[in-house]
């Protein structure tokens, strides 16, 4: 297995790495870059806890080869807060009690962030459909959907 060079940007920081082809983006983020916000739940694409943004859109980091992210901008949950101030989405998750054990939370946040980047004022149905495919074993989903809806409202107002 030939190691190959990999250039990518993670949370605004450029990285030059050398990786084995069979390493997933999730392994590189967690093991090499110490960004453990993205979680490995199932490892097979089913749960959503590993979701990160690749050029602004959600992808499963467990089903993305690190090498396939070459030249891309990756955003993980660690990249949401700016200068110690939480992203409105993160604050809204806290305010609405949308976090219990927290295992699904980073994935939910990233998919929600991707949605708001594409559409700052999504309707309830768009929110539910974007979040579908993310499994949460604790909250029962209602609070998560409400948190996203509220964050969408605030950020749209700020505009």
């Amino acid at each position, binding site marked *: 297995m030939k190691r190959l060079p990999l250039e990518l940007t993670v949370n605004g920081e450029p990285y030059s790495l050398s990786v084995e082809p069979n390493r997933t983006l999730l392994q590189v983020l967690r093991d090499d870059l110490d960004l453990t916000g993205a979680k*490995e739940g199932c490892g097979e694409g089913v749960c959503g806890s590993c979701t990160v943004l690749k050029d602004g859109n959600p992808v499963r980091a467990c089903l993305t080869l690190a090498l396939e992210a070459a030249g891309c901008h990756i955003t993980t949950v660690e990249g949401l807060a700016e200068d110690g101030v939480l992203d409105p989405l993160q604050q809204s998750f806290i305010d609405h009690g949308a976090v219990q054990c927290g295992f699904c939370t980073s994935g939910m946040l990233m998919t929600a962030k991707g949605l708001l980047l594409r559409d700052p004022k999504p309707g309830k149905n768009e929110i539910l459909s974007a979040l579908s495919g993310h499994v949460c074993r604790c909250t029962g989903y209602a609070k998560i959907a409400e948190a996203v809806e509220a964050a969408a409202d605030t950020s749209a107002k700020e505009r």
Partner: protein
Amino acid sequence: MRLPAFDYELPGNLDEALELLNTYGPNGKILAGGTDLLVRMKQGLALPTHLISLKALPELATIRESEVGLRIGAAVRLRDILTYPTLEDRVPGFFEAVSSIGAPSIQHFSGTIGGNLCQDNRCQFYNQSSFFRKARQPCNKAGGKTCYAWEGGSDKCYSVCQSDAAPVLMAMEAEVVVRSKQGERTMPLAELYSSVGERPLTLADDEMLTEIRVPNPGPGTGTAFEKLTYRSAIDYAVLSAGALVQTEGERITRARLVIGAVSRAPLGIPTAQNILQGRPPGDEEALDEAARAAANAAEAFIANNMAQPAEYRKQMVSVMAKRALSRALSRTGMTEAT
């Protein structure tokens, strides 16, 4: 979960990609979105020595218009299909099928249309971790000599083609363009599927799909896709139906029905055409007859290859078939002359 070892190839143009496929033959696999292939590799079901990435081939990632319809590159992402202007109005059945694939954050930004059509067949006894599979002898598809999905075993593999895009595209008589280093051929999508569970595609090891040609349905034509699942996202189809219906005056002139997720290949129901041709659009009995014909044809193939009981799936074929046909029919007035 770790991936087995392999080397990564990043061809910069189509000829390079075809050359690599030719060099590595059965040991080389195309990596499109990876959402089907990488799962199987993690489970030890596919062990290619070389992955050939389509990432740097923009020529495969574009949608073009031709006189007769859409020409969709094999590596076009599902999201780019869903956001293509007017696509939803022109071919609502295709739009429905693509939206129903998995979930937006899994496939829509990563998965490709070529990968969807070329995904491997599935079975609840095969698509499992190697730990699970080690509990018994390998099945036909895993190189053994039996099928656990068929009561009493079988020398045939009863895995299922799970592509959601295939049934409605087959109903619309879509064509695929296949290339290898040796040349190019175009064939009906139906001929991409071999009906052999162990090797469900008719592609040779050095061939790849480059384009999907989706004909304009034409005036008076409606399309629809119906998918039965337990959850509204993530799940593969328990079964599905794709339909195209065309009417002229007060008569049905063309009716294509394809049942998905019941058989080794999407199951075309040619008798639907014979039954529906010439009948008035309001003829409820005609739709019931066609739906029953679909159920009769599908019954022989439905095995215990999913978590859902085979008996339930058998009973649901006619329901999904009728829903798809009725909705396609209700859309025959919607499509404007193109």
